[in-house]
């Protein structure tokens, strides 16, 4: 008995073109289903999407805002993606970002009179180091006693938040605003803005440079080669006598440093002060960015800017009396369709009314002799 004239046929292999089309398909489907949601909220989907597009790409301010938000998303996405190359889940980009901004703040408050460029470089280095050290707290137990890094990196986020709260209410508090959740401001020469009068922010440029350097490190160095071996098949790594412990530590340190860099950018380009909400959930959205970018590091900037535009556009809907959470809904839908698409891509959909001699036309996904 057949219920539907559709059946699935497992494919021999997924072509690379098909794999590349998957995110586009997922995004399109996400927007279509999102349109239904908007329709039911009493808003014209077309108008809403146009508004979102205008707000994120349509004007100079919109573009700048999109780029400002893209920078931390690109970096946290990169941090998650690089750890995934070793099959490590860094859920702690949020905390590493916080520590990175605290490290940079420390430099700003300790040497406030240094000239701008030197001060910025020193603060960036401090952010890298602080992020890396924070990640190492999870990486070392993972490498030595195999303690699950998902749990440790996650918990370290909460500790990082407490630590930053302590700093802004304690030693670094703003004497002019006692009791407020932010530190005193960083020195004026420590602020970063847009580049040469364009809409490009220095943060987004810096983050893309980070992606390029990381890509190059993975694809073109011996260290990266060994990471690919260990990530692709850990048993082959043991067989080739590669030192997995050292690679776990180095990859997590780099991952943490990248997230710390996001903290530096947030501090110097956005907030100008250390504050507990400086991470604003970017560490978690970064997981989605890494996921959507798939296996390609070079796709991360594209996805980061896209997600940023989505968030930026979401805020603009508030002007129409809608909740900005529509962008969260869209993000969720897109990720959901990527997941579904990943399964669907290995199958071929076919239409046929001719009944097979089987009792059902649907294929069990675990079909075969299993």
């Amino acid at each position, binding site marked *: 008995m057949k219920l539907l004239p559709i059946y699935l046929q497992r494919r021999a292999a997924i072509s690379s073109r098909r794999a590349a089309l998957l995110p586009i398909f997922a995004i399109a489907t996400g927007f279509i289903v999102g349109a239904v949601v908007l329709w039911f909220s009493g808003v014209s989907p077309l108008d809403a999407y146009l508004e979102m597009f205008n707000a994120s790409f349509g004007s100079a301010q919109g573009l700048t805002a999109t780029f400002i938000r893209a920078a931390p998303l690109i970096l946290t996405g990169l941090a998650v993606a690089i750890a995934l190359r070793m099959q490590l889940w860094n859920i702690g980009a949020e905390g590493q970002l916080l520590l990175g901004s605290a490290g940079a703040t420390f430099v700003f408050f300790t040497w406030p009179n240094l000239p701008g460029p030197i001060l910025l470089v020193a603060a960036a280095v401090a952010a890298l180091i602080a992020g890396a050290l924070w990640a190492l707290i999870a990486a070392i137990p993972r490498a030595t006693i195999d303690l699950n890094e998902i749990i440790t990196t996650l918990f370290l986020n909460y500790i990082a938040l407490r630590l930053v709260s302590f700093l802004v209410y304690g030693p670094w508090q703003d004497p002019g605003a006692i009791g407020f959740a932010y530190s005193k401001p960083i020195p004026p020469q420590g602020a970063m803005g847009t580049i040469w009068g364009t809409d490009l922010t220095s943060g987004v440029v810096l983050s893309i440079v980070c992606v390029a350097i990381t890509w190059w490190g993975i694809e073109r160095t011996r260290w990266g080669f060994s990471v690919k071996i260990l990530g*692709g098949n850990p048993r082959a790594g043991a067989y080739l*006598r590669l030192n997995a412990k050292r690679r776990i530590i180095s990859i997590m340190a780099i991952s943490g440093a990248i997230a710390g860099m996001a903290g530096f950018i947030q501090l110097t380009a956005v907030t100008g002060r250390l504050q507990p909400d400086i991470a604003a959930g970017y560490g978690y959205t970064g997981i989605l960015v890494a996921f959507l970018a798939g296996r390609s590091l070079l796709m991360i900037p594209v996805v980061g800017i896209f997600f940023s535009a989505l968030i930026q556009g979401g805020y603009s809907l508030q002007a129409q009396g809608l909740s900005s959470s529509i962008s969260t809904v869209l993000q969720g839908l897109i990720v959901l369709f990527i997941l579904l698409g990943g399964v669907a891509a290995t199958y071929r959909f076919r239409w046929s009314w001719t009944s097979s001699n089987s009792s059902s036309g649907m294929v069990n996904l675990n079909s075969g002799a299993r």
Partner: protein
Amino acid sequence: MSSSNTGGPEEPFLRAAGMTKSFGSKVVVDDVTINFFPGKILALLGENGAGKSTLISMICGQYRPDSGSLTVHGKTCTFRSPKDALKAGIGVVYQDFRLVPPFSVVENVVLGTRSRPNRRAAARIEEIAAELGFQVPTHALVQDLVVGQQQQVEIIKLLFRGLDILILDEPTAVLTPQQSSQLFTALRAIADSGKSVVFVSHRLAEVVESADHVTVLRGGRVVADQPAHGLNKSDLALLMVGDGIATTTRAARNRPVGHSVLRLKNASTAGQGRDVLNGASLELHAGEVVGVAGVSGNGQRPLADVVAGIVPLTSGTRETQEERIAYIPEDRLGTGLVGSMTIAQNLQMRDYRSEKSGNPWWINPKTLLAQAEPLIEEFHIPAAASIKVSALSGGGQQRVIVAREVRDEPRILVASQPTRGLDVVSSTAVREHLLDIADKQGAVLVISEDLDELLEVCDRILVMVGGEVVAEVPRKEATRLSLGLLMVGSPDGEASQ
């Protein structure tokens, strides 16, 4: 789908006509027509990459043919999934078994049928097992069974469903000679009950012994389709490769045996069960090929790991001065290769750290590809350097490992099942490589379930039982029989030492 046993070969159970399949621009199976007759055992032969597994995948609904038609019991069928094929009475035993390890035998067998894992099912399973001479404890967990028994469970699973076409892809690659002959006895019993049996094998001796009919593929086309009667091993080899390439290894030379290069004394490894080392001792000398025989699961795998230096000892000692130790592991895709990386990258995995790869820090993808080319040529790897290793056939993957491990004339080579899944020509080539290394004063340790292979290449053969080396036989005194007896721990074997 009743199994009418007319005995006559005139009406095939299954006819696959004009089957064609391409991957990208490469035609892998090209207009193949093949018939499965009731009561017959058909052997499907061909070199590595000839398209055997792909053809089977199309017949059992795993892949969809680009063109061609399937007729089962006179009816034209289109299979959309292996499930459809099962319903039409076609079942496959894959080389990597598809069992659920923490489930019991009964549970595994009834899984996917309407039966429940109850006493009736268990009784039926025991009945099937008894007919075939299998000994499988129905309530044991599959993970506790040895490989041979797991395969028996797979076969029982198909018969339990009342299938009448059984296809086995390289069933004997993982079996010992004893287990193999037991399997063929069972397959004959299955065929005699009116079913159709098809198997793929690279071991020509068993094909000559057991098959009624052979179909040979070469480059995706049928080049021979004839009764097995009157064919011998060299006829088959010739059909497969198409011309008179040497398929027997040259007689081992009398090499001077050099100094000791590695010594293992009372070595033990951690772990549970029988497959650990338990006080094993051995010594390897330069210019010597040493074989290890044994029923699988008696410590051969940890022995290989220990000699290769990738697993630590819990007690005992391992002494060696040699740095250049190469290792062809038993589990090629699981241990020896990274499926997601390219052939070129896999070939370079040992050397990318050494000075040979150019400079000490960077890797140039162009250099990597260029370095792979001569190896692909020399070792007949059937794909381009930039292809992912996971897309290679089983034999192709084995060639990549062998190429990487033997190219630099290692001082010690540990080769575990080095010719498993390789066709005759490639097997011969691999054995030649082993002998070459010994000729150049390297020490070679060969672990194999193929006793003929050990007898062909080794200077002396060690026998392992229960994680220990229990006997050592010089090649001149070793026979299949004496080794077989030693492997099962028989005192008769001991006497022949």
